[in-house]
């Protein structure tokens, strides 16, 4: 072993890295970008969740308590909390509002709500949820329970004494507030994996074809075959389309395998048509190919291709509505979601898998994906360098 030689080698390696300024820049900027996005999303002040209240509670008049309007009290509590943006709804309207996304959940207080509470010493809240976002559903359930408990606690402090409220009397830990949640879409049998699966599949499908396209296009440039190709009557758009078609076939096979595995082996719950899922994911994979071709114009070697992962892929995962709903992201981040192909695929996939929607409902997302692919093909062709790298 010769330590001098090792040092000389190390110097050479350092010199090479330093000469590649973009690598040095990305080594620093890449992690910073990802960390910043993560921090913003994790710490984001949640914007109020819109919920609806159908209050038909007739209240209860008793000689001891005076007039008790339990439904109204909980509604006030919910309105006062910063978590919710409460709208009062009629019995006829609530389902439509829930379906079109005006509200994310609806609490229904039946006529005998206060009376029943008096009788059972147990408050059962009828909560209807939209159901396509498990974290949001959980947070609504939690906050509503909290509001119910708080209302009861205030009652204790007031003239009204909760009958049998002494903790020891029944000797059980049952909470006096119970939530009976029902879901518009999906439902309780859907676990977190079922919710994450659609977008998980989409990201994987896109990620691998992106790398494949980027690297193979780059090779074409660095080996000089691109120059030779362009010296034939073909043009750049043709080359990009040829790649799209060729790699698209692999994407198709990959998507089929991934779907088969998630549906039959991992036994993911889903509604809607499997063919439609196949279509959406394949479309996203094609976008991945075109994105890879475009990105390859900015890379000089395979290593630089890998550097695109934190710059191009991870932001799509963070901002594309994969784990954080776009509507709950800080408003200055939301515009970024709308330029990310993953966002549109996510929406379409969730709509199909969790809501059971069909082509008639999800087509706008597909049209946008096709549009993005089209723009990327054009940009990719324009960026294709004529000279050998």
């Amino acid at each position, binding site marked *: 072993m010769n330590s001098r030689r090792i040092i000389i080698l190390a110097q050479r390696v350092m010199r090479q890295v330093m000469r590649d300024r973009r690598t040095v820049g990305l080594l620093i900027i890449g992690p910073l970008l990802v960390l910043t996005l993560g921090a913003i999303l994790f710490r984001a002040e949640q914007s109020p969740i819109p919920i609806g209240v159908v209050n038909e509670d007739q209240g209860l008049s008793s000689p001891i308590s005076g007039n008790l309007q339990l439904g109204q009290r909980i509604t006030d509590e919910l309105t006062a909390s910063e978590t919710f943006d409460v709208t009062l709804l009629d019995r006829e309207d609530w389902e439509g509002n829930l379906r079109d996304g005006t509200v994310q959940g609806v609490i229904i207080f039946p006529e005998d709500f206060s009376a029943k509470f008096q009788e059972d010493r147990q408050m059962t809240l009828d909560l209807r949820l939209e159901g396509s976002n498990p974290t949001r559903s959980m947070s609504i359930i939690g906050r509503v329970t909290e509001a119910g408990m708080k209302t009861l606690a205030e009652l204790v402090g007031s003239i009204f004494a909760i009958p049998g409220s002494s903790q020891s009397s029944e000797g059980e830990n049952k909470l006096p507030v119970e939530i009976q949640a029902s879901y518009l879409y999906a439902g309780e049998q859907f676990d977190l994996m079922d919710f994450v699966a659609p977008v998980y599949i989409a990201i994987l499908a896109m990620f691998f074809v992106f790398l494949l396209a980027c690297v193979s296009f780059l090779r074409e440039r660095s080996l*000089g075959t691109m120059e030779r190709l362009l*010296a*034939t009557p073909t*043009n750049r758009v043709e080359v990009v389309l040829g790649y799209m078609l060729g790699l698209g076939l692999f994407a198709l096979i990959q998507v089929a395998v991934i779907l088969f595995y998630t549906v039959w082996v991992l036994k993911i719950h889903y509604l809607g048509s499997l063919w439609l899922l196949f279509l959406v994911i394949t479309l996203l994979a094609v976008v991945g190919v075109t994105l890879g071709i475009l990105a390859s114009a900015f890379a000089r070697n395979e290593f630089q291709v890998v550097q695109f992962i934190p710059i191009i892929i991870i932001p799509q995962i963070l901002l594309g509505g994969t784990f954080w709903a776009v509507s709950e992201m800080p408003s200055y981040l939301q515009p970024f979601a709308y330029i990310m192909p993953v966002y549109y695929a996510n929406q379409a996939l969730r709509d199909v898998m969790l809501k059971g929607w069909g082509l008639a409902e999800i087509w706008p997302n597909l049209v946008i994906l096709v549009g993005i692919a089209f723009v990327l093909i054009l940009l990719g062709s324009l960026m294709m360098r*004529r*000279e050998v790298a």
Partner: protein
Amino acid sequence: MDKVVETRDLHKHFGPIRAVDGLNLLVQQGEIFGLLGPNGSGKTTLIRLLIGLLQPTSGEVRTLGQTIPNKDVLAQIGYMTQASALYEDLTVRENIAFFAQMCGSHDPKWVSEAIDLVDLQDRSRSLVRTLSGGLRQRTSLACSLAHRPRLLLLDEPTVGVDPQLRATFWSYFRRLADQGVTLVVSSHVMDEAERCDRLGFMRQGKLLAEGSAQDLRNKAGTRTLEEAFLQFTEQGTGGGQS
């Protein structure tokens, strides 16, 4: 005779560098035209301009009677790049057939003929990855002529080729020229120049002199081409000391 390549006051500048600087070139059908000059004299840039891979800064290029850029005319041109640009994970035959098909020639017989011409019959099913430099160079040549082009542009085709293969290459070139194909061959090796019908001396993007090897020697009044080249270089740079 047809003018196969013609340029008028052709300029190509890369920033302050004048890679091609006011060049007028005329190549006739069926001749082997040698572009001779040191590395960096603008030979590769000129060849790229001739097929429209580069846009001229100013001036005009006409190739096979068409103003360049013209995509259709490329089907009648064969282009061999300096590096043997081949797909490593395809076989010799697959590479040749691919480029032929891109130029609109789908006849497998033409591919076989190209393979025969460069004597690669035994290796036609080998992956390019497994080939030596000389074999790659031959494959690369075959790739540029399987579609039977009327004009062949060869950018330093004999770089890194051993003397024996170099002689073989020149016999291929002569055979093609006899069939009426026009060849433009760039080189920085003077002894190859003797084999060309006509020569152009290039330096700093300019054509210093052109003519047959004999003409150039006579004009310069020197015994060898190398001396002639140096002579023209001195005149060209305005040195003039003798």
